[in-house]
């Protein structure tokens, strides 16, 4: 059978590399980093996060600080969402657009205070994002703090219980997209946010680069009675896809707009001028010609990126992400189709290798965590 060859050439490692190896991880190259794709298995890890708690190393992501009197003005110009609404230690999710409304990256922006805004960016687009932000910075200072910042993600219904065991801080009052600085974990001063990429409750824990192993070990020890497992990039992808979350490079890119993707909610047309506003206003007035939809496949075939989508025998689009959902136990995917085919319930077909398999447009997300 065909197996992807391992890439040679310089790849970077996070400070948790040895920890991953000791935990039995299989390491793969990803965006210039050597990262764990799985430990015990993608499905096992995925279901652990849905039912208990899992811990991820996401230190490969980028952290870019925008500082100075001009910081908010810079952020507002770069992003479609409204950062003026943020209080200290609050954040939001937003695309950054080009003037034509295409997406440079999807990021999280956290306001530390009125003169400091932290942008958390995808690993694969880190260099491009940094250059883009610098081009639009005006008189604000742009500092790349990625090399000093490790990031761990703790996700699942037991995440809060685990983190409260690991630290003296009461985390119940921390709302979604809220940050708390100086949270001690294993003797390390960390910054904790109630954020994540899985659709579960959870926290992302930032700490100095070299301190990550101490934080990881402390959280894992606290998580043992709750059945914590380490989780790799394989399950990270299946989890976010079930939750209907975008993956830059697959579902969104410079060739797609937030109105075509299910991200219209992130575009605040009433705020101050931002990159792409005019183009997106026009698209909103005209109505987007295509939409990203979620679909489920009825047969034993997994849709993959670039598989064609058809209506009858007419090609109408392409799959952007696809997998077998470990929770729903069926193949699911995302793809762009003309707006007239985007209604929930529309019957479509997906070409998997040489076979047309029937599929149906469904509501996103595929999975929503139960309330309460």
């Amino acid at each position, binding site marked *: *059978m065909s197996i992807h060859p391992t890439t040679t050439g310089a790849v970077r490692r996070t400070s948790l590399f040895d920890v991953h190896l000791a935990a039995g991880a299989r390491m793969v190259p990803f965006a210039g980093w050597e990262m764990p794709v799985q430990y015990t298995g993608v499905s096992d890890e995925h279901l652990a996060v849905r039912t208990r708690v899992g811990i991820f190393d996401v230190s490969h992501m980028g952290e870019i600080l925008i500082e100075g009197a001009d910081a908010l003005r810079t952020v507002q110009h770069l992003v479609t969402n409204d950062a003026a609404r943020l209080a200290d230690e609050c954040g939001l999710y937003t695309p950054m657009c080009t003037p034509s409304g295409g997406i440079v990256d999807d990021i999280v922006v956290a306001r530390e205070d009125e003169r400091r805004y932290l942008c958390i960016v995808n690993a694969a687009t880190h260099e491009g994002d940094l250059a883009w932000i610098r081009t639009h910075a005006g008189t604000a200072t742009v500092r790349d703090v990625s090399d000093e910042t490790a990031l761990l993600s703790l996700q699942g219904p037991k995440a809060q219980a685990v983190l409260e065991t690991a630290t003296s801080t009461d985390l119940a009052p921390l709302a979604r997209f809220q940050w708390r600085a100086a949270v001690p974990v294993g003797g390390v001063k960390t910054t904790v946010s109630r954020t994540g990429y899985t659709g579960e409750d959870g926290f992302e824990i930032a700490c100095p680069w070299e301190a990550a192993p101490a934080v990881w070990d402390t959280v894992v020890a606290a998580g043992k009675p709750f059945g914590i497992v380490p989780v790799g990039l*394989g399950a990270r992808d299946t989890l976010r896809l079930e939750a209907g979350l975008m993956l830059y490079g697959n579902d969104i890119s410079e060739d797609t707009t937030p109105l075509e993707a299910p991200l219209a909610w992130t575009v605040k047309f009433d705020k101050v001028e931002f990159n792409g506003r005019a183009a997106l206003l026009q698209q909103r007035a005209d109505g987007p010609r295509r939409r990203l939809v979620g679909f489920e496949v009825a047969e034993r075939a997994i849709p993959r990126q670039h598989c064609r989508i058809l209506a009858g025998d007419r090609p109408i689009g392409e799959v952007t992400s696809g997998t077998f959902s470990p929770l729903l136990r069926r193949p699911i995917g995302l793809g762009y189709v003309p707006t007239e085919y985007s209604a929930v319930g529309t019957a479509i077909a997906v070409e998997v290798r040489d076979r047309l398999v029937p599929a149906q447009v469904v509501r996103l997300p595929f999975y929503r965590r139960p309330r309460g």
Partner: protein
Amino acid sequence: MYPSDRRYTQEHEWALREGSRVRVGVTQFAAERLSDVVFVELPAVGADVRAATPFGVVESVKAASDLFAPVTGRVVEVNAALVDNPELINQDPHGAAWIIVVEPADATEWDRLLTADAYAKLVGEAGA
């Protein structure tokens, strides 16, 4: 690790001679590198297969991987257990997760397959 009762391909299949027939599966090396197998696309009994040519597909959560036939011939048996329990490939790739049995057409192809030692060297487990 790699039983010497059988031979191997560069693409990580194993071939076990049983009388005039050849039983085929994927190796432990392959099974460990696949994420969770969720579907196996099997040929029909009676289908022709050709050496070093794809005859089926293993679909895992992460990717689809072609299965390459070690020998040319006709499929005489297919492992139906893989339909409902594809995860057998992850669990027992050298045993319960055999994939097809082939009636080979060309006996000379056997000699071109890798011995257990040669395969172990290929996957970096010399002396295993």
